[in-house]
């Protein structure tokens, strides 16, 4: 009897957890297949004739096309930049005796904590003086502040787990340190490279504050685009808004599930290894 009560209790909590997690995201995705009037119907409609109308409307909108492309180009460029620079130095910190290494690494992680709004004031003036406000370049540079420290710490963790003996063998066979890095260590940490790239992509894709401040009409990204609908009046645009939100969320959902195994490491900047 007691066992059955316990089982029912557990089942209830499991159901509650599933609902709690699924309802908000599920609701906006569900609504993206409704017509505008159905979204604002009360009581809410759970059964309806699904339509792709909102997606057609959104994807045919030049404003959306441009911001989608901007989001993608900024995120990918930033990932490439920080992955190359960050992985190199992660290897350096993992394999070399560097004077004051502990302090330098602490400095690097502490820059990750620099609040974006604090950095945004000087960034705004600097990019304004350089005539580079409202360019993708400004965002790609601004995103270095949080993504580069992240890559250094993540990749250092992955390199630390590779036994150095393999690279020493390669060096005995005549490889220099860079070749040992490139040919031996890098292929071994390939899964880590993939996971770290995905995390940095998501961080760039999700970023809002710098995008709001540093760019305008030309280099606008999706998060800023969606808030503009809300400013114009949410009532009329819910169809477009839910389709846009779904387009933002679905790639992240897929990517997030693909890095499940590295989640704890990624979310704690490598501080806790799972």
């Amino acid at each position, binding site marked *: 009897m007691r066992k059955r009560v316990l089982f029912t209790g557990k089942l209830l909590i499991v159901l509650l957890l599933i609902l709690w997690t699924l309802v*908000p995201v599920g609701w906006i995705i569900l609504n993206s297949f409704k017509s505008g009037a159905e979204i604002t119907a009360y009581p809410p409609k759970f059964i309806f004739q699904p339509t792709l109308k909102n997606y057609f409307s959104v994807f045919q909108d030049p404003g959306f096309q441009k911001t989608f492309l901007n989001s993608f180009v900024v995120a990918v460029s930033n990932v490439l930049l920080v992955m190359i620079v960050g992985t*190199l130095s992660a290897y350096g910190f993992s394999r070399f005796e560097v004077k004051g290494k502990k302090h330098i690494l602490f400095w690097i992680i502490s820059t990750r904590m620099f*609040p974006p709004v604090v*950095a945004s004031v000087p960034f705004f003036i600097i990019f304004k003086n350089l005539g580079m406000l409202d360019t993708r370049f400004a965002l790609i540079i601004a995103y270095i502040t949080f993504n580069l420290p992240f890559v250094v710490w993540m990749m250092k963790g992955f390199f630390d787990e590779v036994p150095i003996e393999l690279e020493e063998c390669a060096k005995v066979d005549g490889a220099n340190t860079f070749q040992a890095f490139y040919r031996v260590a890098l292929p071994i940490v390939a899964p880590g490279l993939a996971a770290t790239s995905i995390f940095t992509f998501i961080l760039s894709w999700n970023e809002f*504050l710098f995008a*709001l401040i540093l760019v305008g009409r030309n280099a606008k990204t999706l998060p800023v685009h*969606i808030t503009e609908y809300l400013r114009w009046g949410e009532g009329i645009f819910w169809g477009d808004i839910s389709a846009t939100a779904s387009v933002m969320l679905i790639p992240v*959902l897929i990517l997030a599930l693909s890095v499940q195994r590295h989640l704890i490491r990624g979310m704690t900047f490598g501080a*806790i290894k799972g």
Partner: protein
Amino acid sequence: MNLDKIFNKSYVYILPTIIALAATTIFPFVYIIYLSVHKYDLRYVATRGITFLGAQNFVNVLQDPTFLASLRTTLIYIGGALLAEIVLGVLIAIFINTLPPSLSWLKSLVLTPMMLTPVAIATTFRLLYNYDYGLIGYFMQLVGLDKVAWLAGTNFARLAIILADVWQWTPLLALISLGALQAVPKAPLEAAEIDGAGLWQKLRYIVLPYVKPILGVGILIRFMDIAKFFDKIYVLTGGGPGTATETLTYYIYKTAFKFLKLGYGAALSLFVLFGMIVISLLIVRLTGAGEHIT
């Protein structure tokens, strides 16, 4: 041969990162200090230039009622959201830890929200909170409660913002607590059992010392994130009603980019930065999180 020697130097690998981070963090930081002691008003900078103010901006900050109000609001969010996330996160972790391996997909599902785009999540919650057709109001009526105009009143708007944050970030604390629970070794627990230790003693002297520093990392990360809380407020309430839901970050954003007072914004930023560093160090000291960070 020469090339081999160059590749053997550590700075070849490290220097690009140091330069990039110095340019994107140290340089802005120094620039902010410079700005904070000047009157830098974007509207007049072309005609009147920049005037040196000394410490005037800082004196003004301390007497600025909006600054103090937004500091208070920020502390409410930190207190409310962080506490709820720690308690719920630990409970969820303890629960998931008891589940059979066949239910590991549940863990993946529950942990997903923290990766999702905050702006899109806030938009979703704005739909859920809507007074006329929101799902939350509907559920409240189903169980016999009255609908609430979530985003219109001060207390409900703050609660709405905290709830959306708790929804997205409790999974992080759950994930970290799970990691912490798995770090507790079984042997000392069994030994204590044999020696007749009670539940409280086991928790206090065996579980807590392992869990505390790991949980500390989570608390530190969440503290810093809530301290710079912005996206959800911008989408859900725009700081309103009035300035009731405005955080420090939001106030700095408004000062610098709506009122265009960049010098004053810089002075505000320095206060926030200073406060964050002090509290972060306090968290590290109290929880021993340092062993994981350095």
